[in-house]
């Protein structure tokens, strides 16, 4: 037996005393020790001096104590030394007689250590009893819960939309980072604040309040509310505020999750889009009106037709021109507006264009409202889709009536000119007679000889002689007819002297010759005096004069290949009595500058030699002068003067 009185021994002693029997006492003590060893909670009994007096089996198993530790000071036992204040706490417990608790982290395990006073049978406090309750699992689940909470919080803080949780009485409990940033408030400022006081009372809205109330009562969410609020950081923003009830299983308390969605950008974008849309619509409308106005007002007659050739649009000009409406066209058919002679070829050409899809070009006469037919050039073009199928025909009528008239007039004036060529001079008249009469005359003479010859044969060839005589009558009559025609021609162009501007005459002739000039690649330079006085003359004859001289110059340059062909025309008024015209070419030049004016003189392979002779006789008839000068290698200059109209001179 040990000298020290350990608790068990004390207990045993106590029991012994109580029972008054040693044997009974020992049995009870052993029983007690067995019970203590069966308990899985480690128990350590310390004496007043903090030395170990007893520990149970769990103490050895769980805390790693060994029998030799009995009697050792608590500070020398590693597991107990982990509680630095243990000795003092034990003293306090002994002094106060009341138990205390301390946490212990031992290895992987967590314990709550209860320190309670140890009393002996005399109710004297002899030390302390330490019981180690293992709270490791509990500790772990606490940690887990804390971890989950932090994790959730972090998630909420990364949500860009502001969120807050309200208590049932609409006070703010907590919010996420976005909420505090958006409203520019801190957690402390808003903790417990009624929602309605938030943001200058902007959320103090009857529908929203009713909404929240109903939601708390009934549950299902209603339509979110849209509010505008001015924020210190971000300015005016439009928010969509929504609320969802939150309930926790096993908790009667209800909370509300309020979400704010910033729709400012979206609303702005929508507004911008709406604006853009409207502006585009407006532009399209304006453009459409513009185009339609163009089509309606261009000085052309525009039409459209279906792929099968059916006319389905006519612009206003067409309707105005024909003084009809679209219904008339549909009712009567387009051929009704054409000149009767043009109907058949036009229908054929158009049917062909529709069948082949080839561009349609035609000239037709279209009846105007007053019944007059005017010439139009018609152009049609097929529009096609991506598969090259004709989707529509677009067409134009272009009024070419005036052009046609002008062309006619030009042809007439050219005819007049050539008539003038034939009738201008006596010399030319003679040439014309020679030309026109010689053939029948030659035939008459030959037939006369033949007739005589047939009569003189033996026997006389009377039938042949008669044929020859008949031919004499026929050809003689024709010669007479030629003379009559030439006389008529001569009468047709009487000399008509009027005041004339030579510059104008030159311009007219240049216009007539423009085709020839372009065809033969001749460059024309004109230098026409502004102050050229008028002359008195026959317009046709003077045109003929200039025409012959210009054509002569142009033809003289035909063989030129090594230098530019240039024709210069100059009018001057050097002498007060006369107007001077110089026509210079860069042709081969002349050998004899006087002989050129003689009739039948020609250097051209196909010329009659009449052109310049005619010029000379025209000039003579107008009391002017005509001469030619030729410089070696630099072409020829033809000059003529005409007396100016004296009354026209200042």
């Amino acid at each position, binding site marked *: 037996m040990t000298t020290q009185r350990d608790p068990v021994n004390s207990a045993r002693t106590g029991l012994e005393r109580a029972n008054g029997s040693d044997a009974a006492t020992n049995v009870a003590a052993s029983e007690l020790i067995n019970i203590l060893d069966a308990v899985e909670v480690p128990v350590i009994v310390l004496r007043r001096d903090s030395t170990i007096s007893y520990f149970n089996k769990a103490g050895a198993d769980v805390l790693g104590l060994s029998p030799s530790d009995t009697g050792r000071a608590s500070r020398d036992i590693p597991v107990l030394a982990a509680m630095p204040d243990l000795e003092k706490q034990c003293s306090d417990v002994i002094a106060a007689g009341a138990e205390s608790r301390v946490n212990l982290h031992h290895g992987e395990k967590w314990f709550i250590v209860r320190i309670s006073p140890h009393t002996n049978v005399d109710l004297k406090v002899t030390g302390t009893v330490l019981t180690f309750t293992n709270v490791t699992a509990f500790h772990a689940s606490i940690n887990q819960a804390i971890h989950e909470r932090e994790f959730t919080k972090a998630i909420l803080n990364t949500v860009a939309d502001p969120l807050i949780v309200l208590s049932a009485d609409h006070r703010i409990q907590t919010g996420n980072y976005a909420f505090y940033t958006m409203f520019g408030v801190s957690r402390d400022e808003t903790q417990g604040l009624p929602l309605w006081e938030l943001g200058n009372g902007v959320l103090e809205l009857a529908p929203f309040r009713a909404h929240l109330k109903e939601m708390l009562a009934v549950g299902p969410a209603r339509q979110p509310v849209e509010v505008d609020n001015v924020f210190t950081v971000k300015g005016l923003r439009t928010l969509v505020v929504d609320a969802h009830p939150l309930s926790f299983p096993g908790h009667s308390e209800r909370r509300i999750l309020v979400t704010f969605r910033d729709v400012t950008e979206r609303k702005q974008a929508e507004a911008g889009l709406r604006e853009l849309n409207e502006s585009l619509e407006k532009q399209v409308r304006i453009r459409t009106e513009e185009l339609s106005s163009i089509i309606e007002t261009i000085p052309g007659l525009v039409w459209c037709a279906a792929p099968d050739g059916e006319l389905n649009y006519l612009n206003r000009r067409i309707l105005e021109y024909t003084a009809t409406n679209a219904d008339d066209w549909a009712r009567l058919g387009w051929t009704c507006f054409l000149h009767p002679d043009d109907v058949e070829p036009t229908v054929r050409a158009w049917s062909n264009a529709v069948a082949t899809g080839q561009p349609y070009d035609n000239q037709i006469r279209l009846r105007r409202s007053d019944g007059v037919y005017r010439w139009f050039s018609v152009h049609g073009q097929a529009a096609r889709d991506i598969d090259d199928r004709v989707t529509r025909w677009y067409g134009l009528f272009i009024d070419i009536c005036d052009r046609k008239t002008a062309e006619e007039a030009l042809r007439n004036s050219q005819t007049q000119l050539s008539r003038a060529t034939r009738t201008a001079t006596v010399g030319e008249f003679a040439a014309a007679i*020679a030309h026109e009469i010689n*053939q029948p*005359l*030659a*035939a008459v*003479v*030959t037939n006369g000889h*033949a007739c005589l010859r047939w009569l003189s044969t033996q026997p006389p060839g009377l039938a*042949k002689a008669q044929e020859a005589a008949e*031919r004499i009558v026929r050809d003689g009559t024709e010669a007479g007819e030629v003379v009559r025609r030439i006389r008529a021609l001569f009468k047709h162009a009487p000399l008509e002297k009027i005041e004339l501007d030579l510059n104008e005459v030159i311009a007219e002739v240049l216009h007539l010759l423009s085709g020839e000039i372009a065809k033969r690649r001749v460059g024309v330079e004109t230098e026409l005096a502004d102050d050229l006085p008028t002359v008195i003359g026959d317009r046709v004859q003077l045109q003929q004069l200039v025409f012959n001289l210009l054509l002569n110059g142009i033809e003289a340059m035909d063989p030129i290949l090594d230098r530019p062909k240039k024709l210069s025309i100059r009018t001057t008024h050097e002498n007060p009595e006369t107007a001077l015209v110089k026509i210079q070419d860069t042709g081969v030049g002349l050998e004899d500058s006087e002989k050129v004016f003689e009739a039948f003189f020609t250097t051209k392979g196909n010329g009659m030699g009449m052109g310049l002779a005619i010029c000379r006789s025209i000039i003579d008839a107008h009391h002017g002068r005509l001469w030619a000068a030729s410089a070696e290698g630099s072409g020829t200059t033809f000059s003529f003067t005409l007396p100016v109209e004296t009354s026209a001179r200042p």
Partner: protein
Amino acid sequence: MNPDSPIVFVVDDDFRVRESLCSLITSRGLHVAVFGSAAEFLECEKPDKPACLILDLQLPGTSGLELQHQLTNGDAPPIVFISGHGDIPSSVRAMKAGAIEFLSKPFSEQELMHAIDNAITIDRIARQKRTELAELQRHYGLLTPREREVLPFVVEGYANKVTAADLGISEITIGVHRGQIMRKMAAKSLAELVRMADKLGIHRLTNPPK
């Protein structure tokens, strides 16, 4: 009219001129063929007879002068030009190019018939010459190469001996060749053979023997 009677071709674009000429020339017992243009004339197949061509100067398309240029081969008929214009440069050109006559319309029967007769006579002679020459050429074609070699010596009057020495063959052989030449060329005398050689244009010896 016998098959060798001459024919007159008329090319004029004026039908009245064609008709009257046709009538007049027929009345003189000549054959006539008329054409309205140079092209018509060129297309037509001509009979092998003495002929002349009355050609208008001013023809549409190919002109009279141009047609004249196209007819430069030997057997074309002689040309009589007729013209409605007294165009001197053209008539000069026509005459220089070998026309027989140039008549201005209107012309007399005498002028025309004289020109036609002239032209036909010229054509007859030309045809005769062409026939003779053809006959000579046929005879010449019968000669062997050696005989053709000997012929120039004969017509130049060299003795057989000289010719034999020059050609390096025997004198007797030369005598045989000479006989053959006379026979094949149907020459009755040496003088005739010389004329024949002349007409055939047989060249003189370039290297006469010494």
